[in-house]
């Protein structure tokens, strides 16, 4: 049998190109996404950059950890926070008992225009990493500062440094160049003062004559004596350095997971469909084989053997392709700001192997299902002209189709009750199931759809139109197979884009209703607005409220894992003046002290205790004093009391909201803002800037999730149409012999491909419509005003590309076919 299989493959290489392309590109797509996603694991590692010289670094813990189960079932889930917990003030004293060089490191806020870095470190910390002088030397006076290159400042320049204690005048004493992260250096006492006393790490270096190596480490551990403080050596010293990319990495992981899911869906859809169609198209050949004496089982084995050979080669090629493409995709993510700067996709074996295996398995399943049908058909039936597909709705189609619909219904019903932040993700999942259902039921839907679509233009199209209409309606299996890639392209594009657009409109309207302040002060290049600036703003005559809000990541335990939530430090009693925060229970005026919290509705009640981790990974237990109404921009957000901020975050505000009397001179406000390195913006402008930023993020996110998948499905459209057209050689030749001119044949093929595109687009419109309505209903209860937004321009462009691809991919092969002698073709086999 292998000789038969081998010969068949050799003779049918041209026919197998279609399935090869579908599988190779599908596996390539999957492998690329999987590799990039796996690249996020362990990102942010590497050797220390700041603490390169000290032997031991003592730093506060910086992980939020959840331990579930015990013994063998013990599972530990940890998340690394951007900064670590502060060290106790007596720690340097305790460490001084160790006979070694001990240096205390501070990292207070400090920002200067024209030089990089936003922290002020003591000069002693400069000895922890290698540096070279570009100009000048170490700071000596209390007003001296050392800057890091690149900067235009030179020793002797008088500069203004924004600090946590207000704007201060300093004199540049030197400029150094280093591979470590850029920072400002002052004399040790000044640095401690500007950091408000907060110690980030203590570095211990061995002295000649003192304990060395492991002995030193042991002594340090003994001196520290506290389990929550980390004692780090070697590569682990990197853990003492700040990790600012944690939020960006979280976003990248979410994006890549969505991309992986999308890639998996389209790959399975296209590969299964292509392999099944390719087998079904060889009905006559299998009929001959059966007539020659092949049992159904032998036909199935032949098909499986062929598919295995093609599958292995194609999946192998795809794996190579995906491996090559993954680093480029990772680089694009870095350039658009979705991933941290050092993010890259390493070549690891198991994600590629998983993509290879998954693609091959799907191909074999698709081929096997079709082979089963082909094997059971009686030889005589197979040899008859099968242009009229009387039984296109096979049991398999019914089962999968009904199953998909059954899964969609509860998903759509769940929209009303689920956490509305995942509305869009839910909608896209429901859309995927709907697409599968419609693709399965296509043979039932196509005849009425074709009639409806062509009825208005039937007379205009003439005989060509009649031929095309009848062709599309009767060769249902072919129409279904060629419309499916179009359905999936426009369908996933429509549901994803419309879902995001509707969500954006909901978020936008929420944000607009949220802010009742007259103006806002936003930081410039600095990470925040310092407290003295806030005080200065408050002092301007006419200002009735100057409310700072600081944003911070927090972690809440969900499903045994610390999950990313958003935290906002707000001065509870004052915030109602500037922000409209609807409260369903309790009162925000009680949000004071260091042990209270306001939470979103659904999980906790007033009086409950919430356990969460703050932005520096400190675990806290807070009492609920207010429950906020469910709003789209307040999901997974907690409000923290202002006093809690001092110990656990930089003394900066992310935004300052102002209310002032009508007559207040804006110039005074603007001046106060600028003095603190910030900018005054009108509320309207603030909202517009936020919306623009959100749109840009959404657009790039959509490209990241959809871009590759759409490229793949576009190629699948072309691939399927070429396969289908080439399989119609006899039919087209018969048309020629009946008197159709080559031009008419080509026009018929073109009209039919337009019809097929229209069918696919209509079905996709159903999917998009259902998704948008579901999103709308789900979001309507959590946002003041939601618009049913369908991005017509983008969808129109995508549909137009599908149309162009479809027409070109069917007319070109047909043109090649009509050039051959019709009589030869009419007697040809497929």
């Amino acid at each position, binding site marked *: 049998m292998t000789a038969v299989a081998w010969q068949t493959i050799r003779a*049918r290489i041209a026919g197998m190109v279609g399935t090869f392309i579908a599988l190779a590109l599908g596996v390539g797509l999957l492998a690329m996404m999987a590799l990039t996603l796996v690249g996020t694991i362990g990102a942010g590692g590497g050797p220390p950059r700041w603490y390169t010289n000290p032997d031991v670094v003592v730093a506060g813990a910086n992980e939020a950890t959840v331990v579930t189960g015990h013994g063998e079932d013990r599972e530990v889930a940890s998340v690394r926070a951007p900064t670590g917990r502060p060290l106790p003030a007596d720690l340097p004293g305790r460490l001084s008992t160790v006979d070694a060089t001990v240096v205390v490191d501070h990292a207070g806020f400090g920002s200067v225009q024209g030089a990089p870095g936003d922290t002020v470190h003591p000069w002693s910390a400069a000895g922890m990493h290698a540096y070279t002088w570009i100009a000048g030397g170490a700071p000596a006076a209390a007003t001296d500062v050392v800057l890091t290159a690149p900067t235009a400042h030179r020793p002797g320049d008088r500069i203004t440094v924004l600090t946590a204690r207000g704007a201060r005048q300093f004199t540049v004493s030197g400029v150094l160049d280093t591979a470590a992260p850029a920072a400002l250096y002052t004399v040790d006492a000044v640095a401690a003062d500007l950091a408000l006393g907060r110690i980030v790490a203590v570095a211990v270096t061995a002295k000649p004559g003192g304990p060395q190596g492991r002995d030193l480490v042991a002594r340090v551990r003994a001196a520290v004596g506290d389990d929550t403080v980390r004692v780090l050596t070697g590569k682990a010293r990197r853990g003492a350095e700040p990790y600012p990319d944690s939020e960006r990495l979280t976003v990248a992981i979410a994006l890549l997971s969505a991309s992986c899911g999308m890639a998996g869906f389209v790959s399975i859809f296209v590969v299964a469909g292509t392999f099944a169609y390719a087998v079904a198209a060889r009905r006559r050949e299998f009929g001959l*084989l059966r007539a020659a004496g*092949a049992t159904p089982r032998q036909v199935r084995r032949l098909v499986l053997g062929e598919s295995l050979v093609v599958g292995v080669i194609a999946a192998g090629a795809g794996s190579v392709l995906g491996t090559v493409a993954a680093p480029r995709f990772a680089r694009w993510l870095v350039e658009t700001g979705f991933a941290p700067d050092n993010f890259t996709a390493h070549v690891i074996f198991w994600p590629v192997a998983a993509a290879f295996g998954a693609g091959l398995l799907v191909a074999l399943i698709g081929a096997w299902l079709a082979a089963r049908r082909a094997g059971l058909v009686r030889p005589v039936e197979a040899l008859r002209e099968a242009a009229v597909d009387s039984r296109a709705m096979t049991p398999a189609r019914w089962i999968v189709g009904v199953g998909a619909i059954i899964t969609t219904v509860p998903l759509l019903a769940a929209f009303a009750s689920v956490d509305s932040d995942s509305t869009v993700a839910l909608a896209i999942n429901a859309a995927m199931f709907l697409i599968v259902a419609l693709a399965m039921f296509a043979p039932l839907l196509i005849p009425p759809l074709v009639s409806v679509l062509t009825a208005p233009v039937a007379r205009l199209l003439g005989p060509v139109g009649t031929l095309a209409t009848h062709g599309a309606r009767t060769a249902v299996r072919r129409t279904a197979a060629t419309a499916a890639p179009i359905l999936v392209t426009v369908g996933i594009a429509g549901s994803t884009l419309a879902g995001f657009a509707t969500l954006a409109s909901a978020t936008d309207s929420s944000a607009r209703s949220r802010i009742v302040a007259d103006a806002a002060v936003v930081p410039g290049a600095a990470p925040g607005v310092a407290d003295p600036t806030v005080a200065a703003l408050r002092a301007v005559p006419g200002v009735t409220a100057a409310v700072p809000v600081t944003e911070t990541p927090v972690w809440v335990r969900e499903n045994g894992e610390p999950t990313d939530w958003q935290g906002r430090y707000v001065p509870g009693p004052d915030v109602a003046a500037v922000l409209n925060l609807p409260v369903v229970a309790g009162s925000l005026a009680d949000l004071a002290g260091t042990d209270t919290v306001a939470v979103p509705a659904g999980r906790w009640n007033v009086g409950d205790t919430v356990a969460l981790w703050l932005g520096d990974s400190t675990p806290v237990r807070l009492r609920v004093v207010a429950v906020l109404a469910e709003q789209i921009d307040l999901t997974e957000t907690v409000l923290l009391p202002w006093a809690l901020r001092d110990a656990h975050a930089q003394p900066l505000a992310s935004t300052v909201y102002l209310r002032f009397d009508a007559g207040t001179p804006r110039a005074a406000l603007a001046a106060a803002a600028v003095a603190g390195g910030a900018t005054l913006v009108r509320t309207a402008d603030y909202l517009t800037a936020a919306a623009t930023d959100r749109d840009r993020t959404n657009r790039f996110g959509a490209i990241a999730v959809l871009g590759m998948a759409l490229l793949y499905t576009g190629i699948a459209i072309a691939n399927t149409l070429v396969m289908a057209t080439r399989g119609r050689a006899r039919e087209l030749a018969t048309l020629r012999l009946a008197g159709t001119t080559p031009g008419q044949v080509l026009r018929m093929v073109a009209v039919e491909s337009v019809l097929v595109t229209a069918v696919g687009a209509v079905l996709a419109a159903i999917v998009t419509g259902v998704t948008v309505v579901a999103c709308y209903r789900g979001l309507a209860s959590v946002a003041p005003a939601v618009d049913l937004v369908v991005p017509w321009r983008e969808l129109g462009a995508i549909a137009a590309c599908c149309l162009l691809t479809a027409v070109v991919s069917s007319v070109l092969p047909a043109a090649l076919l009509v050039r051959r002698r019709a009589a030869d073709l009419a007697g040809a086999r497929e």
Partner: protein
Amino acid sequence: MNTTLMRDTTAAVALCDVRKVYGTRSATVTALAGVSLDFGRGRFTAVMGPSGSGKSTLLQVAAGLDRPTSGEIHLDGTPITGLSETKLTKLRRDRIGFVFQSFNLLPSLTAELNVALPLRLAGRRPKRKDVRAVLASVGFADRARHRPAELSGGQQQRVAIARALVTRPAVLFADEPTGALDSTTGREVLTLLRRLVDGVGQTIVMVTHDPYVTSFADRVVFLADGRVAGELYDPTPQAVAERMTFLESAP
């Protein structure tokens, strides 16, 4: 069944009240309306009839390529009506040879492999010289490694006959084997078939609509409207043509 006992059990193929109805709920076509027939061993039988008489259907049902709606069929003594698809295929593979009018051969295989196909499917590995011997016996020797697309119509039919013969079948069925050939080539193929019957005692059942072709047969069975409408032994073209005209003009 009583009628079976009355039938000649040495017949190569025996049909008993076979009916075949096609179609969907809206339009049914009765191809065979109760056919009872025997085909004798070592004989060359032709089945003749106007178009639409059901002769191709009769052949396909008798050879196990299609299933009758009702009735019994015995092939080389074995009843085939209740067999599963797999068992039927194996029986067919071992004991039946079938030649269509055209498109007999798998386009992707060489002539040699096409001929060897039934044996390979049965799990046997025929020696190349045995296959070549069968090809030689049908007068096709030198282009065994070519694919069907490279052969003429007559050569393709010879290869098809060789494939039908390679398992030494009890019965060789042929559905208008010369229909697509010119008269000279057709005559050569028919002479070959006749030689097989005379030389090795091969049983052949052939369907045709051409009276000249029936002159090579020992017996002609006439079919009209799905029923047997007579038979003729040692036919001549003129006698057959007369009978046909009579059948076609009958109301």
